[in-house]
């Protein structure tokens, strides 16, 4: 079995996978981790219980199970190990996975170009999946990265936009514009595909080809939360869906804090749009600080509980941004085409002017200008153009 095969086995045993980074360092390699005896495990610091769990969990596990799922869902995998083994330049991604599919028994170390030959499709030289360098520098890098969507080496210099799942209309509107403006400057937007801010940031980022990265706390084939199904399939087409967990893994609560280090790891900077006092987004910000990256925060009303966390960040010294322009200037990135070319006709502009950056009720718009059907029509067109969002209770808010 190849090193990748060993990793594909390891990732099926949660008790082992969660410790794998540390164990690999002490025992020396995936094969050593997988084949370690109970005594060896105890010797490198596993508790009695953990060692038991690992030994029991290992029984009957084969790499094929994961490979089959990868084939079924069209996902790929890269391993941290292979990157280290073959050096920063070596292509491992697609070929590695293909090696796992095709030539699994051909030899323990053949993960590189040889297996690409066996697989018969020579994509090397063009775009491939390569373990992201920025992620390799993280304290506990994910040992495996499962991928759907575009090849991984097209993913360069992301900006994370994260925030509360219980976002306000203001927060969602900000996240959407930030997402859009960042991709228009040519940078991919990284987020966690959660409800609220994350979903809005992805949505905004879908508008340009720089793309968006969704880092999941479950398998890349699992839709969670379910209402993001459509969003997820758009991202799978135009961006990247990543996870350190093998396909089929359920969204367990424990996975989410862990995936935040990946979000931070893939990004040059983290923007927190809205976060309550205790929010997962703050974990992402902490990870970014640990990794020596910039943290930005979008201010909100001092009375809004959804902005307590972001204000805390600001007090601690995070940079305040009002728009992507601030962010790009701070990072020294040339600001291309911030103005988007959405055209509006006269009537649409009139309604747009009536709407502010604060939510306005449908009734108020109708009272001020005309007939229900007509206003509804104009608002819907504006919404479809991405200029306006509808909020709960019949309110509308301008997004840009």
């Amino acid at each position, binding site marked *: 079995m190849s090193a990748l095969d060993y990793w594909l086995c390891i990732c099926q045993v949660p008790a082992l996978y969660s410790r794998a980074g540390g164990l690999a360092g002490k025992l020396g390699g995936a094969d050593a981790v997988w084949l370690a005896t109970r005594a060896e495990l105890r010797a490198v610091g596993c508790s009695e219980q953990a060692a038991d769990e690992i030994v029991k969990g290992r029984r009957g596990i084969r790499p094929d199970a994961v490979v089959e799922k990868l084939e079924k869902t069209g996902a790929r995998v890269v391993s941290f190990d292979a990157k280290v083994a073959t050096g920063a330049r070596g292509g491992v991604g697609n070929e590695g996975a293909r090696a796992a599919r095709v030539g699994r028994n051909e030899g323990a170390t053949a993960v590189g170009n040889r297996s690409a030959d066996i697989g018969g499709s020579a994509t090397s030289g063009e775009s491939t999946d390569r373990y992201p360098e920025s992620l390799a520098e993280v304290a506990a890098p994910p040992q495996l990265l499962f991928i759907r969507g575009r090849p991984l080496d097209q993913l360069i210099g992301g900006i994370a936009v994260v925030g509360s799942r219980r976002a306000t209309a203001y927060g969602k509107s900000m996240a959407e514009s930030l997402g859009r403006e960042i991709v228009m400057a040519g940078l991919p937007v990284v987020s966690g595909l959660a409800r*609220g801010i994350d979903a809005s940031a992805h949505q905004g980022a879908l508008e340009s080809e720089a793309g968006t990265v969704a880092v999941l706390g479950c398998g890349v084939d699992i839709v969670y939360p379910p209402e993001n199904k*459509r969003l997820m399939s758009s991202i799978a087409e135009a961006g990247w869906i990543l996870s350190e967990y093998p396909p089929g893994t359920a969204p367990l609560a424990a996975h989410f804090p862990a995936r935040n280090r990946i979000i931070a790891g893939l990004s040059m900077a983290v923007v927190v749009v809205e976060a309550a006092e205790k929010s997962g987004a703050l974990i992402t910000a902490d990870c970014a600080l640990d990794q020596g990256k910039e943290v930005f925060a979008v201010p909100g009303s001092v009375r809004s509980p959804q902005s307590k966390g972001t204000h805390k960040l600001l007090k601690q010294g995070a940079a305040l941004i009002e728009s992507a322009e601030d962010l790009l200037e701070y990072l020294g990135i040339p600001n291309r085409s911030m103005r988007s070319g959405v055209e509006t006709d006269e009537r649409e502009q009139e309604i747009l002017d009536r709407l502010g950056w604060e939510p306005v009720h449908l009734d108020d718009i109708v009272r001020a200008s005309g007939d*229900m059907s007509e206003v509804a029509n104009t608002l819907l067109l504006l919404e*479809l153009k991405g200029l306006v969002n*509808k909020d*709960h*209770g019949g309110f509308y808010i301008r997004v840009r």
Partner: protein
Amino acid sequence: MLSVSRSATVIGLEAAPVRVEVDISVGLPAFTIVGLPDAAIREARERVRSGISNSEFDFPLKRITVNLAPGDVKKEGPSFDLPIALATLAASGFMAGERFNEYLVAGELSLTGEVKRISGALSVAAKARELGFKGVVVPRGNAEEASLIQGLRVMPVANLRDAVDFFNGAYEPPPSEVNLREISGQITDYGVDFLEVKGQEHVKRGLEVAAAGAHNVLMLGPPGSGKTMLARRLPTVMPELSFEEAVEITRIYSVAGMLGSGQQLIRTRPFRAPHHTISSAGLAGGGSSPRPGEISLSHHGILFLDELPEFGKHVLEVLRQPLEDGVVTISRASGTLTYPAEFMLISSMNPCPCGFLGYRGRSCSCTPQAVQRYRSRISGPLLDRIDIHVEVGRLPKEALVSRELGEASEEVRRRVEAARARQRERFGASRTLTNAAMEAREIRRFCTLEGTAAALLERAIDRLALSGRAYERILKVARTIADLAVEEQIGVEHVAEAIQYRALDRGGTQ
């Protein structure tokens, strides 16, 4: 001596004829009733005995046997008191029984001999007419409703004496008659009006569309936003009841015993708002002695279910058949009953468990999962039958204190009636009467979209992540909006407005 009077028992909404045979023979004094009587009928013995004595007749101290034929139909209720008493008196020779064959008799006796109101008199009268009887003898309190049946002599009696005198030919009570022209000329008064509702323009508009196409509605809004107030006013903008519809409603209320004394015809569309602790039998009807449930009491009117997710899951499931067929079928060991149940379902729910999602000035404390769970308590199949979702916001203070009045119900009703007329014309002889009732084939035929409207709908479904079930509903509602606008072709703005009424379908974007 044997004597036979004629009466009827009510099963479902229909009356079934019953022969009341009384035989008096020599023997030890006894009073036996056979023929599947219920408890109320068995107690008739006591009422009949005292009623006869207290009307200054002698109760025969002989062996009295009462048989209610046919013997295999269960009979119930106190309405057999009067026919039993009359046949008993005839059998013992106190009165003539020759005209028993010409009249159906029904009425409850009090111990004093007075004849008291019964339920279901309208059904009895309808059956009498159907079977070719000359008339009915009914309690005075039921005379008004019974006289709705044309071509039937309705003889109101106040007490047992009156009834005896009538059959003896000694007394001819003035038959109760009704002037139909006069009734239909009366103006319907609901006591409430849409103009009393301040603001909430888009909700009122949504309800207008609902009334025009007979669409079911779900209102989403925080507590205190006026959902109940709005729903209560919906009957005022619905088309005027036709005479036939009014009679149908009256008949249901008559059987349920809910008709006020002396009330002739229910001329207003019913509005029923049962509490969420109601049982499925309470909603659908039934019970050991079957009675129409709330859905039948809402026939041709509004069934308002406030706090929809609080209703029991099984309770809501019973709504599915009536929403589809317009009738509710109740099957019991004793047989199957059908009650009409053509109603508009108006339901309401909070936007989230705490009620404050999307409410300005107070933040909601629910997690997104909790909101999701709360909303998913309403089953898909039920949601499939609700075409319109409107969000009811809580009003700002300025709107509440403003003197501005809304549009009067009568004006709205005129538009609704015109739209309904267009629908009738379109559907012609087919069974479908309203846009809400259109089936897939009719939707394909009557809800075609031209270029831009079709493109808009496609884009909206994509961008707003509308669920698949939204598609047909949007088409139906767009058809109604076009009807209100007097347009043959569904336009882009009609589709746009219809999309506004799918708040609950919107996926991740909200």
